[in-house]
């Protein structure tokens, strides 16, 4: 009986250790693959992140220009603004005075976006802005 108990205890311990190791591995892999999410104002206050990150805000009125296949516009949270450079076809809901999220990197004072998202809902405001109101 005691032997069975010891065996059960050891098995449970083994399972817990294995699970802990698994969780650690997952969390480690997670930390290398996070995308940070900022608003234009954040970029004033913190050190500019290296590598890719997400940036959310509103598209400033009269700021969209399309040259060739490159679209440039100004993304703002009504406190700070930043010029964004995007190559490709813009989503249907991308328009002035409407929310947009871009993914890419900072090159001197411009944001080079690989990806550009506009939200489904026209009433949408990026949460970063809503929160501060």
């Amino acid at each position, binding site marked *: 009986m005691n032997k069975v108990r010891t065996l059960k205890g050891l098995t449970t311990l083994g399972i817990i250790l294995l699970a802990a190791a698994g969780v650690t591995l997952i969390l480690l*892999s997670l930390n290398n693959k*996070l995308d940070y999410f900022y608003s234009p104002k954040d970029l004033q206050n913190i050190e500019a992140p290296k590598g890719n990150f997400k940036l959310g805000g509103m598209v400033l009125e009269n700021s969209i220009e*399309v040259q*060739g296949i490159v679209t440039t516009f100004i993304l703002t949270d009504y406190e700070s603004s930043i010029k964004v450079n995007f190559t490709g*076809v813009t989503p249907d*809901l991308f328009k002035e005075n409407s929310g947009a999220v871009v993914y890419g990197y900072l090159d001197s004072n411009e944001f080079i976006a690989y990806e550009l998202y506009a939200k489904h809902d*026209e009433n949408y405001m*990026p949460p970063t802005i809503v929160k501060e109101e």
Partner: protein
Amino acid sequence: MIGELANFLLVLSLSLFLGSTLLGLSARKTASIRILLVPIFTNANLLLLFSFALLVYLAVTDDFSIRYIASHSNSALPIFYKISAIWSAHEGSMFLWVSLLGIWSLLFIRNNYKKDLFNTDILTLLSLILFLFSAFLIFTSNPLERILPITPTNGADINPILQDPGLAIHPPMLYMGYVGFVIPFAGAVANLTSGSTGNWVTSVKSWTISAWAFLTAGIGLGSAWAYYELGWGGYWFWDPVENIALLPWLCGTALVHSMTVSSKTSDLKSWSNFLAILVFVLSLFGAFIVRSGIIDSVHSFASDPTRGLYLLSMIASISLFSFSLFAIKGINYSKKVTLLGSKESFIYINNILLMTAIFSVLIGVLYPLIYEASLNSRISVGPPFYNTIFGPMVLIAGLFIGSSIEAQWQRPFQLAKLINPIISVVITFAVIFVLYLVKGIIFSALELLSLIGGSFILISYMLSLLITENKKRIINSGSIIAHLGLGILLMGVALNSNLSYEETIAVEINSPKQTARNVILLHNIKETEGPNFSSIVAEVEVNPGPNAVNLFPEKRRYITRGQVTSETAIYSNLYRDIYLNLGELNDQNQWILRLQLNYFISFIWGGVMLMVLGILIFLRRANNESA
């Protein structure tokens, strides 16, 4: 008038659900009450469904005094979309959700009610859940609310992006899957409360498989809709809203496999019990994430913190109750020894892998919340995380699935059975090597994992089917078709990721443009009128000559909302889609076009269809067995 009637019926059904919950609880002591239960429960559900039918009627007849219909429908809409507008936003979606819950519960109780204690507990539990969700519907999100005294003359219309047959069918399918898991949940919990010795797994197994089939089809349809309607050219984005649909699917998959073991060998009963609780809790969790808007998603849904709080407390109490019950009563240690290489041992591995997958996705979904709360900085977890986790997992899964085909219940591993898997590995590597030599195709590590996993399943199943003399023994056709579907899906994913290609260009009308791989000629831009939109259509010829493909991508402006949507033009054959999007006119008077060559998309859809087909065949077998 009809609106008030619908509202009244809904409130009436709410009180009947409360009644049958309370009666059900007292029926545990006073057996004579039990005869009342089924009629009350049946009528409560019928009232609920009748109320939903009235809302459909109101939507079809354009009653814009109903606030929900006024803000989500329009008299110019085709009837089909007037109906689907009901589930285009929060209130109506919740009503559909609760109604489908009612349909599942009613069907199950009508089919299974024998006067034993076990089913009384199931009925009580279903009543309680229906009561809670009807209350949520009526008090926080009533779709039948009126606009009085001045009613609008017309409605604000449904979001054009949702005016699509794919999106009209996708949510009901998905919800059927989510709420269908209430049956195994109720069965598992009732099994714990009544301490029933009867095999609860047999009585809910085919219901679980049906819900799983709906969920699989629902996710597949959603993915297909995103592919052709959203115009990104992808089919899966690891967005939170997709992930929370994947969670119950993974858990449902684990549950059906575990139930198969429980009904064949009477092992894993506690485990099936646990999974049956988990799968429904994960479905509810999904509803909470979507409806509360707590996680920033590319899909956006109307959100409201009060609703989120109500849902969260409901889910918390349901899971706390059921998991504590399980912890107290549900755990039985089996003293049986599992033979290595037996069919059940393979299913144990399947369950371990699926649990790992569930855990990883859950972490990916919740991590941004935890991170924001603790470090006050916003992050998102994207595809790289999920791909790294799922890559190795699908390879391991593929290797085990491929090796498991000839395994038998409670029989040990036989060395001779390894021949097919070994041949399959050799063939797989040979094919990949030939692809490299002939076509110069180099796969990334992640693509290789998925490709090898998929082709291993495919080849070893094919070999077993061709070679084995005793075909009858191994042919459980449903399971084979579903696993073949998975194999094809995995190969499709890898090949698509490796071969797909896209280019964006700006062109003037009638001046052919040579790109890296294609010649694109924009013939014309035409303006046309649709029933409730005006549109511009581009006539584009890709690679003029004998193999030319003509495509007509479109941009529509919907009149009521003034919203613009793009209609992608797709030319498909078995191995490749030519996928063309029309962009904006740029400042130099050129049109921007995006051309994608998406390879082996048909493998992905075909794989999902085979999985659904396999599950349905498997369901028929399970039905025959339990009958």
